[in-house]
């Protein structure tokens, strides 16, 4: 599903966020990206969502090399990835319903289908009945769940989350992580960047530790041969 081969990323300001990171996530897997803040976790997610492109190395998502993708192909590519942010990135002046419906609207989904799917997504995160409320009328935990509903409403095969529990108390954090686990159980590939190590241990999923822009313990041997031939 996701393959990073010796990926380096240097930002225009000169900071090198990744320095030859190699990792692999299989379809249907749930993986935690951990490590100190500034280690490069967010950069890994940005490279997956094509918010950034690698300076060196190869990023393959669904066997597609993100470096060779033309900018006109990016929107369609992003529709296959659900993204959850620590700061939710919700539209403050639109009700919950409109926020969740946005990914379906941009892909020209028929109205009736939108209604069905938005309700289903809100049901999954336990917010059914709050469609007409504005994001700021909700608690922080609820806002985060609106963000999750938006990320999964178009049923993307890949769900990524950057510190989704960063602003939540331990109980809410656990609840959100369980939510991600449930999506994984129905076949979605899930990648969550977090520094909440205790919670990661509790859920017992594979952990990829990012350290100084590299993956701790990665040798490159676990990469599939497909990378070498591309």
């Amino acid at each position, binding site marked *: 599903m996701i393959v990073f081969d010796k990926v380096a990323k240097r930002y225009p300001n000169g900071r090198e966020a990744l320095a030859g990171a190699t990792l692999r996530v299989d379809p249907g897997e749930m993986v935690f990206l951990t490590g100190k803040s500034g280690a490069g976790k967010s950069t890994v997610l940005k490279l997956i969502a094509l918010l950034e492109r690698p300076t060196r190395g190869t990023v393959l998502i669904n066997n597609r090399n993100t470096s060779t993708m033309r900018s006109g192909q990016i929107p369609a590519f992003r529709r296959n990835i659900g993204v959850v942010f620590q700061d939710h990135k919700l539209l403050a002046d639109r009700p919950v319903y409109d926020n969740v419906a*946005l*990914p379906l609207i941009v892909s020209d989904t028929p109205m009736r289908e939108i209604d069905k799917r938005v309700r289903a997504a809100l049901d999954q995160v336990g917010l059914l009945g709050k469609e007409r409320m504005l994001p700021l009328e909700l608690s922080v935990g609820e806002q985060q769940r609106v963000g999750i509903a938006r990320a999964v409403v178009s049923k993307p095969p890949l769900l990524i989350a950057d510190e989704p529990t960063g602003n939540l108390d331990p109980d809410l954090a656990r609840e959100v992580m369980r939510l991600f686990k449930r999506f994984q159980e129905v076949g979605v590939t899930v990648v969550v960047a977090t520094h909440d190590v205790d919670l990661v241990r509790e859920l017992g999923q594979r952990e990829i530790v990012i350290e100084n822009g590299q993956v701790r313990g990665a040798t490159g041997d676990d990469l599939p041969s497909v990378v070498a031939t591309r």
Partner: protein
Amino acid sequence: MSLGSYGTRHAQAFIGALGRLARNPMASILTLLVIAVALALPMSLKLLVTNARVATGDFKNAVDMSVYFKTGTAVSQAEQLAKNARSRNGIADVEFIPADKALDEFRTYSGFGAALEALEQNPLPHVLHVHPAPEASSPAALEQLKQYFAAWPEVELVQIDSEWVLRFNAILEVMRKVLLILAALLGLGVLAVVGNTIRLEILNRRAEIEITKLVGGSNGFVRRPFLYTGTLYGLVGGLLAWAVIGIMVLVLSTPVATLAQLYGSHYTLAGPALEDTAILLGGGAVLGWLGAWISANRHLRSIEPRA
């Protein structure tokens, strides 16, 4: 993607654009006024030219020539010459006015009837009103015709009545060119005004654009509402310009009719024709759309989502 949902998206973008215009009425009205004035100015100049042209008669009909005979020329002789002239190429019509008839008319219309009674004989000559054919109305052809009549011994004077019309038409032609230049410049102005308005709106909605791109909205999708907003600005601006011109025509029509009456004409001021209305609305909409398109393409590209 079904056609139905595609139509729904466009309807939503259109209604959204209307809503945004209505939510910020003061700024919208100012922008609309600028667009309306920029569109109304060249259009009212065009109407001025059109009206002036209609009021002075068509170029071709206006050019004619008066041939005055020497006093004492016999009516039969003058009539014979008129007949000769009629058979000549390049002449559409010749009207013969015998001196007696001219005197009658003068008596009736001038108000000098009593004074004329005092005269022993008719001071007026026979006159031919010559209308050249349209294809023979060039200055050179007219000059040739003038010499043809002047060569007759019975003829006292040949006068081309229409030199002022030629000059006037030349002035109108200059005005028409000025109008085109003005229209082009003000059209550019409309582009700039709409472009700037759209730029501000894009900046205002930066967060929304970022998030929309983040969830996979294409540039086309993000651009669509701004194109509708721009088109709407142009269209409503054109409508306002049309109303402004309508009011101008209404206000001017009575004094112009009075003026025309004093000159013995039934001329009435013509407002914008259907074609002019179409130019205003269509031109406004196209300029609005284009301004928005240019601005959106320039500024949307720079807004990319950052996580």
